[in-house]
């Protein structure tokens, strides 16, 4: 069997829940990739190594990381200042993988960011952190202090001619801040609404300067790729997408939690072997495999490997953030979709009409159905909205993501919707 049991991202995390100190991180090989990169590699060579490793963005979209970096001009004549940002605003419902990585090993993120910043010749880097992650914030702040003291940051990074400053920006909530252009507005001190694309952040980002925004888990992978090489990294995976993935499972399973596993681990392995299966008396009705904005997957497709491409082709869903929520047989499918749509309606930034008006409408109709006031024609209105709010009908991907669980629920749980409407009550409430 291809793939291995190596856990480069989480293997060094302490079992007592404390953060890895600088000394402990260095002892485990930390910052050796950075030293090697600064001594032996050009920024372009770093980009090529990450491209060859097939690292794809872990924030949900799966965009190839090396390619994203290549859109930012480097070399003589490139505009400065340039910025690198860690998107540490993790707020996909069901997701807590970045928190685990930031709390457990903040230096891994910092080293990944320094290498990524070097690869695009950035002048400054920001960690865009959500308010609710106070523990991550204080651990990152201590780690930054250590990194400055050890001269991994500042005027001469690890004794080289490269200069980099790094700061934490603590935001104040809202899901939309994870959208990379809304994040840029938030960081600039504006309302966090998305920006029109093009121009893309790679050329016109923070304060109009070239900027790369990468997810925190994505960045945590970078030191390992440079330390051990692209071939090693690809070998960690069971699929064409490189590396491992920090998967999480929540819901009524025996052991909710996180596991770093080869990219391409199946839904079934994750659910049964790692999460320990369902709690006594419950069976899995479906999973939302990649966080709140992905389609439901039924048990007959649980042998699907969780990779970006295969999840779309075989399961009609998405890997997303790889953070699975389980729907059990005693939980109402209409209720869970209502909950998700209420989340997205609340979190809509209000910038574009289809999202601002469409999502609350969806949430209200679902509330009516769940509470026994639904009508048959409501199902048509809901189905129509899955078209009205799809990609390219809205300013950003929030509403298109929001309708993914809705569209799949209307198909997969149609009988449940009809029961609610005909019986004028929720059959799951006694």
């Amino acid at each position: 069997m291809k793939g291995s049991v190596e856990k480069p991202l989480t293997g060094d995390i302490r079992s007592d829940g404390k953060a890895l100190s600088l000394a402990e991180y260095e002892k485990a090989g930390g910052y050796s990739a950075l030293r090697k990169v600064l001594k032996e590699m050009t920024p372009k060579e770093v980009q090529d190594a990450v491209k060859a490793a097939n690292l794809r963005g872990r924030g949900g979209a799966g965009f190839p990381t090396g390619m994203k970096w290549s859109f930012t001009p480097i070399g003589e004549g490139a505009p400065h200042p340039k910025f690198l940002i860690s998107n540490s605003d993790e707020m996909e419902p069901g997701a807590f993988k970045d928190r685990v990585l930031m709390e457990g090993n903040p230096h891994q993120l910092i080293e990944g960011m320094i290498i990524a910043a070097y690869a695009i010749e950035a002048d400054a880097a920001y960690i865009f952190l959500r308010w609710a992650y106070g523990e991550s914030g204080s651990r990152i702040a201590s780690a930054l202090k250590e990194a400055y003291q050890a001269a991994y940051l500042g005027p001469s990074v690890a004794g080289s001619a490269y200069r980099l400053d790094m700061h934490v920006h603590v935001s104040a909530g809202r899901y939309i801040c994870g959208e990379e252009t809304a994040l840029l507005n938030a960081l600039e001190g504006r309302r966090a609404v998305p920006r029109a694309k093009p121009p893309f952040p790679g050329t016109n980002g923070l304060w109009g300067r070239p900027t790369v925004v990468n997810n925190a888990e994505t960045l945590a992978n970078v030191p390992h790729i440079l330390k051990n090489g692209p071939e090693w990294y690809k070998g960690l995976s069971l699929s064409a997408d490189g590396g491992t993935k920090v998967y999480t499972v929540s819901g009524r399973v025996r052991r909710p939690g996180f596991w770093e596993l080869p990219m391409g681990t199946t839904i079934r392995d994750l659910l049964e072997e790692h999460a320990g299966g369902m709690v006594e008396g419950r069976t899995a009705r479906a999973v939302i495999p990649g966080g709140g904005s992905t389609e439901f997957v039924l048990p007959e497709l649980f042998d699907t490997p969780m990779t970006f491409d295969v999840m779309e082709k075989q399961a009609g869903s998405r890997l997303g953030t790889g953070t699975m929520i389980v729907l059990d047989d005693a939980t109402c499918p209409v209720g869970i979709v209502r909950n998700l749509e209420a989340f997205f309606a609340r979190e809509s930034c209000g910038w574009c009409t289809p999202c601002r008006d469409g999502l609350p409408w969806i949430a209200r109709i679902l509330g009516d159905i769940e509470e026994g006031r639904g009508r048959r024609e409501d199902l048509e209105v809901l189905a129509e909205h899955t078209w009205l709010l799809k990609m390219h009908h809205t300013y950003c991907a929030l509403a298109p993501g929001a309708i993914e669980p809705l569209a799949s629920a209307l198909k997969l749980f149609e009988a449940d919707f009809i029961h609610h409407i005909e019986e004028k009550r929720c059959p799951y409430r006694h």
Partner: protein
Amino acid sequence: MLTEDELKTIEEAVKIYPHRRAGCVEAMRAVQEKRGWVGDAEIGEIAALLGMTADELDGVATFYPFIFRRPVGRHVICVCDSVACWVMGHETVLDALKNRLGVPLGGTTADGRFTLLPISCIGACDRAPAVMIDGDLHGPVAPDAIPAILGRYK
């Protein structure tokens, strides 16, 4: 009037940005940490310090759930109502909190001790149902454990 301490914290916070307004969330956070919430007078003062209009800053402040533009209790209880917590019994936790405190969502207890608020996913799905009080994470929370948890916040 902003205090010397607050002004110092704000000046420290804006240093990490090439443009001062980028520090506005941090500035409001500094004021809120001292006063519990951010009033109109403080909005006006911070805006002037950072080169914004008061309306611009209020537009930013009201965008965010964690910036309070109205007085809150000494302790703010944020109850996660997103999907993993909902599946794991968020409603029973919320009902228990409402009963215990005698206030609806958005309400503050008469003694000014607690404010009860809903919050979107706080990334504690492995500890669902989760509740955050003043930045401390609690979870999984059993409804009958609520009196003991609240007892830690005077």
